[in-house]
């Protein structure tokens, strides 16, 4: 009786192993429900990953930082996320690397916006140049929001402490703070900034893309994944690039006046992005950043980010661009796109 049970279990295990060998490679992809990850969603929905023999499971996070932690810890194989100081520190420990690009803040596109509280606006905060001396809300120190205001400081040559940066830990707290005037200004994603300013709760000051183009986000993979399952990563990138090419054709267009316009293929892609971001057409249309056709990323810009963070002690001194960026999967560029 017992022998038969064991035999049955062994047979069952063998058949399971066999079926795994023949089945698609399982890959767990982690990211945010952001419009900037549209290419990833398109590749999933249209079966580009499946075409490459990948069995994709998506997992969603509510901030960029945990995605990097999950990839480092091996809970996720691949991450699609924003570049933060925390991520660079993890990359410096050799647990993950950037393998492809995603959103690039490009003039004419609206991804992250600067908003002022009504109170501060009434007191004279009318443009980005008025920010020195004001309280500026960010999620966390070392986040993309923090870097946005850091780039402004460098660009306009303000004193390092001219804008007082207030970490509020979450977008919800930032919204509460800027609506009530607890902070004078904040950087908010377009899908938050647009409805707020349309409703009169805040005043829109401008867009990051118009001020300081930069590499906001990309695709990261765990070091184990790159070392041990390199071909899976390559297949992933191949499928991902099919989607970025399609994204490029549909969305990466500016008209003669520099206004963001969409191609004829856009209509077919909107429902996919709406579905994966849980938002409406209007929100999607308002928040699509530039994403490079070849899934390239600007490695020089990554190096610049590292320098900025290291100079402020947010990234450990030993973290170099070689440790952070893997240039072997996509073509990387050293100058701004376009």
């Amino acid at each position, binding site marked *: 009786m017992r022998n038969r049970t064991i035999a049955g279990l062994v047979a069952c295990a063998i058949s399971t192993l066999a079926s795994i060998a023949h089945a698609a490679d399982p890959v767990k992809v982690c990211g945010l429900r952001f419009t900037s990850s549209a290419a990833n969603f398109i590749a999933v929905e249209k079966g580009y990953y499946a075409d490459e023999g990948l069995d994709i499971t998506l997992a969603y996070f509510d901030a960029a*930082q945990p995605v*990097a*932690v999950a990839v*480092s*810890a091996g809970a996720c194989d691949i991450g699609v996320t924003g570049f*933060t*100081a*925390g*991520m660079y*520190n*993890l990359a410096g*420990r050799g*647990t993950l690397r950037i393998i492809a690009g995603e959103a690039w803040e490009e003039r004419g596109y609206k991804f992250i916006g600067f908003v002022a509280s009504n109170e501060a606006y009434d007191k004279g905060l009318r443009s980005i140049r008025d920010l020195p001396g004001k*309280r500026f*809300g960010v999620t*966390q*120190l*070392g*986040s993309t929001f923090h870097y946005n205001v850091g780039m402004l400081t460098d660009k306009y040559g303000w004193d390092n402490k001219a804008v007082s940066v*207030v*970490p*509020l*830990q*979450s977008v*919800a*707290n930032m*919204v*509460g*703070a800027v*609506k*009530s*005037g*607890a*902070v004078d200004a904040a950087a908010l994603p377009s899908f938050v900034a647009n409805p707020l300013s349309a409703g009169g709760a805040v005043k829109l000051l401008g867009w990051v893309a118009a001020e300081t183009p930069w590499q906001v986000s990309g695709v990261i993979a765990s070091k184990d994944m790159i070392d041990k399952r390199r071909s899976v990563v390559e297949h992933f990138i191949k499928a991902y690039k099919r989607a970025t090419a399609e994204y490029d054709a549909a969305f990466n267009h500016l008209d003669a006046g520099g206004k963001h316009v969409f191609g004829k293929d856009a209509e077919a892609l909107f429902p996919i992005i709406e579905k994966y971001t849980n938002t409406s057409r209007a929100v999607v249309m308002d928040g699509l950043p530039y994403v490079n056709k070849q899934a390239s990323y600007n490695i020089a810009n990554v190096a610049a980010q590292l320098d900025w963070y290291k100079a402020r002690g*947010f*990234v*450990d001194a030993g973290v170099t661009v070689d440790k952070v960026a893997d240039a072997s999967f996509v073509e990387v560029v050293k100058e701004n796109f376009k």
Partner: protein
Amino acid sequence: MSSALKLVQDASQRNSTGSKDEGPEAVVRFRGGGFDPRPNAWIGWAAIIGLVAIWQLAAASGYLSPLVLPSPVQVGSALLKMAAADDFTSQVSASLSRVASGWLIGTIMGLIVGCAMGVFSIARAGALPIVSGLYPIPMIAILPLLIVWLGIGESSKTAVIVLGVFSPTVISTFSAVDNVPRGLIRMGQSFGLSWRSIVLKIILPGSLPGVLAGFRITAAIALILLVSAEMIGAEYGIGALILLAGNLMQTDRLVAGVLLLSATGLVISWLLGRLEKALLKWR
């Protein structure tokens, strides 16, 4: 023959048969003892040292990657660096003043409401559902509201701790008042004590043990909520330090900050122990 007499006879018979027939002899085996845990400070320290040693060994041998848990040496050096930094005193004093003021305000409000609920039926019936409703509110979830109401200054940070401390204080206070033996209150009435005297001389001292036990819980809550409070735009503070280390994935600083927080907790708990000893000598 009376039954008593018969019993005596039976006993004498049993005695005589016992001496005739010499059965096996045995010594009664001790079977009590145990189930009596006693404090032993030495073993407590040894356990901590042993744990740290195992931790260091695991880290040094590579079983424990720094991402999972930085080694005690790394944490120690992060802690030293933290303590040597110029802003260390402002970090600690900012947190301590938030904890102290939040805990004090929440405790005073809680004691007033809790005592009122213990003494007056109307206060109890009116406040109990409100307090019970306030108890499980997750502070992190209402941070955006607190920011809208109170801004991002000290008041909203203090409010997080006040709100967290208030409800448990109310509940421990009014159950402490409830636990004052009714017999003592009846005694006070029977000796013609005024209402005021009964409250001041019987109910308040009688509820002190329960109130002080509540302090231990609320002091811990205040420390736990410190990190939530310092989520609101804190420039300095142990909680802000932990949050920043977490955001930057500087795990050595993260663990060092957590150790700092738990050391603060130990000091507070020791102080409360002294307070209990001083105030509850009669127990």
